[in-house]
């Protein structure tokens, strides 16, 4: 039981717990908050895996921007809990069954068939951030320049789309 293993297990438990909490909580706000916690946990994972930049962008973009946006909308729409009318009675059991099967199948597949052997980075190698960052930046602007630029256009389009969708024909009404 090395320390990173213990750390991993604890963090894994937290991640799973928060995910389940998001799933099962009746209040939408609680669900969102649970998800934020989940994202933060995953960011810690990224750090452990030697991807500090990704960890930071996870926290900044995901937990900071996206979840805030979610909370805005929840606030806008009202965090009401929906009544328990069921029009699809078979949905829940079937979904749970199939999901479990999927989990087992995919685990099995990835672990036995498509598995890269090896361990992840040792913790000390993961800490060396400045080297990683420089290399990441170099790669980003040389090999992956096109996707980088396209992503910027994508963000522009998303922005335009969001504004357009919420804009009324009869004029701008807030």
């Amino acid at each position: 039981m090395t320390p990173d293993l213990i750390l991993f297990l604890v963090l894994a438990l937290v991640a799973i717990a928060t995910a389940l909490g998001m799933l099962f909580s009746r209040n939408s706000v609680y669900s969102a908050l649970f998800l934020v916690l989940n994202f933060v946990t995953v960011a810690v994972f990224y750090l452990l895996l030697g991807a500090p930049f990704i960890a930071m962008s996870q926290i900044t973009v995901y937990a900071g921007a996206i979840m805030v946006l979610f909370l805005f909308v929840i606030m806008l729409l009202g965090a009401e809990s929906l009544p328990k009318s069921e029009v699809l009675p078979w949905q829940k059991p079937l979904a749970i069954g199939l999901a479990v099967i999927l989990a087992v199948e995919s685990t099995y597949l990835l672990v036995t068939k498509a598995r890269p052997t090896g361990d992840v980075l040792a913790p000390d190698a993961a800490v060396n951030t400045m080297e990683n960052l420089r290399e990441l930046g170099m790669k980003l602007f040389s090999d992956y320049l096109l996707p980088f630029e396209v992503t910027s256009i994508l963000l522009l389009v998303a922005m335009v789309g969001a504004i357009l969708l919420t804009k009324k024909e009869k004029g701008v009404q807030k």
Partner: protein
Amino acid sequence: MFLSEATTSGFSYLAPWLVFFPVIGLLINIILGNRFSERVIGTIASLASGAAFVVSVLLAYTVSINHGEVSFHELAKWIHIGSLKLDWTFRIDSLSTTMMLVVSGVGTLIHIYAIGYMHEDVRFKNDPGRFRRFFVFLNLFIAAMMILVSGDSYLMLFVGWEGVGLCSFLLIGFWYEMDTLARPSWANSNAAKKAFITNRVGDFGFLIAGFIMFWQFGSFQFDEVFGKVHEVPESAVIAITLFMLVGVAGKSAQIPLYVWLPDAMAGPTPVSALIHAATMVTAGVYLVTRSAPLYSAVHNAQEIVALVGAATALFAATIAVGQYDIKKVLAYSTISQLGFMVAAVGMGAYVAGMFHLITHAFFKALLFLSAGSVILGMERGHHHAAHGHHDDHGKGKKGKKKEEHHEEEHHEVFDPGDMRNMGGLRKTMPVTFWLYMIGTLALAGIFPFAGFWSKDEILLDTAKLYPVVYWLLAIAAFFTAFYMGRQVWMVFFGEHRHEAAAHAEESPRVITIPLMVLAGLSVLGGALNLPGVHTLGHWLEHTVELVEHEVHIAEWLEVSWGGLNPYVALISTVAALLAILVSWFIYGRNPLKAGQIDPLKRSLGGLFTLLEDKWRVDEIYQAIIITPFARLSELLADVIDWKFWHDFVHERIIAGTYNWLSNIALDRYADQKGIDAFANWLGTASQWLSANLRKVQNGFVRSYSLSVLLGVVLIVGYLILK
């Protein structure tokens, strides 16, 4: 067929004209006859027959200058298939020329007679237009008979045989829609059918004989057959001769197929004279004579033929005693005389048989034609009486009537041929009377008329060869004289029993002159074959031979006064005179009065009734043969053919099965319940399928995403398993 020598000396090339002249005559009458008067039609027909007679004379002359040698004349090749060669060849020898002369000679005389007879007959029956038809048929008969006697093979003989059978049918049924008393009836046509059908039974026998002959001998031609008689198994020859006897029994009216001849008297009298006395019925005798080599080879068959002939002679003679119709007496007499002839030729006495054939043709034709004259006279008398005095003569004396005679004002049914209506015609019809007497005496066999010589020769030959037959024939000769005497006393002597007899008139000359010719022949005909001289015998010897069997001849038969045996002649003459005397005792001394019952009936009672009823032979045939046959054919037609085959097999089984198959099996089950149901099920199933598949599209996103998950799970599972 292969020796068609036309001899350079002689007229054998004229042979086909025997047939052609009558055919031309009938064609002229058919095509152009509707414009001619009766006289012209009759003259054309008589000339045609007369021309055939002239040709016969020339052909006989040919034979005589060739010293009896036979000549041939091939007219046409008929069937040539492989080795089978059947031709139409004329055979000119002494036997065939004899027959030709008799047929055409007597035939021509009868044609002339028929001009006068039919002139009156069609007027009595109210159909003058039918005159022409009679002469067409008569000429057709002459042509067919010529084919029969002049043929060189059994095949041509059979062609003529069938032809005369047809003409007999046509002429018997000449007044086909009425009976002899001119009332609408089936009687005449039934008589014609009876003749044809009975003849057919005989023809059947002839055909079987022909088949066996062809099978054994390989040919129909006379010389070929006769040459091979001894090479062929005897059983075949016996079979042939006996089957031919069946044919002879049919055509020449022997037992058991004689029953058509009395009914054939339904035809006009010239027909009875020509066909049923002189010519057609003698075809059987000719056949046996022609087949002499065959018969001579089998003695047993000869005995059978002779016995059949003798039995017929006696049997028919007894029936003739009880008949009341003038023509029926003569008909049974004909059957009886044919029995004489058949007995004679059956035993091998061919010359005697042919001699009797010739003389019988003379006096029987004379008798029939005279009877026709009597009938016409009675008809004339009846008409005079009916138109003359209505009141007195409607009632009063009538002869003993049969059922069809009943009293009405003007439509009294009168049978001119019934002897019980006659009587005393000697005074009113003298010429006919004397002619009839000559015929009677000839038939009875009284010296020196023709019948004496011919009958005597038969009796002599049978006495020598076959005594049983002789005694039968002798008794038959006794009866012959008896019934002829009875007839003469009843018809010509005594008082008139009916006013028709009282007013009867003599016939015109066109009728009586041919009769006189025939009477002359009946008187002088004996000269043809006087004993010792044997003119006819020598003539015929070229063709046939009298076969002398080795029999023990009694001494008294050996006596010969120049060929004539006095004992036989004496016995037959005494018997005939005795018979005439007996008949005078019964009928002549106390002549019958009107309404009186026949005296023999009183004495013989039931036996006489049987004789009247012809021994009930027709009734026996009806019961044994005809009725069962009719029932059998009804059974076959109605039950087996209609009910079984049609109703059951066809309708129920075949049609029913088919209908069941198509309607029920195929239509209802296979088609409607099977294929239709399947096709409909397809539609219903796709509706059900689509209705159920539609439920997948419920509009809920979550269920769609569940489907996606399901697909993912399956794909991943597949990847795992791969």
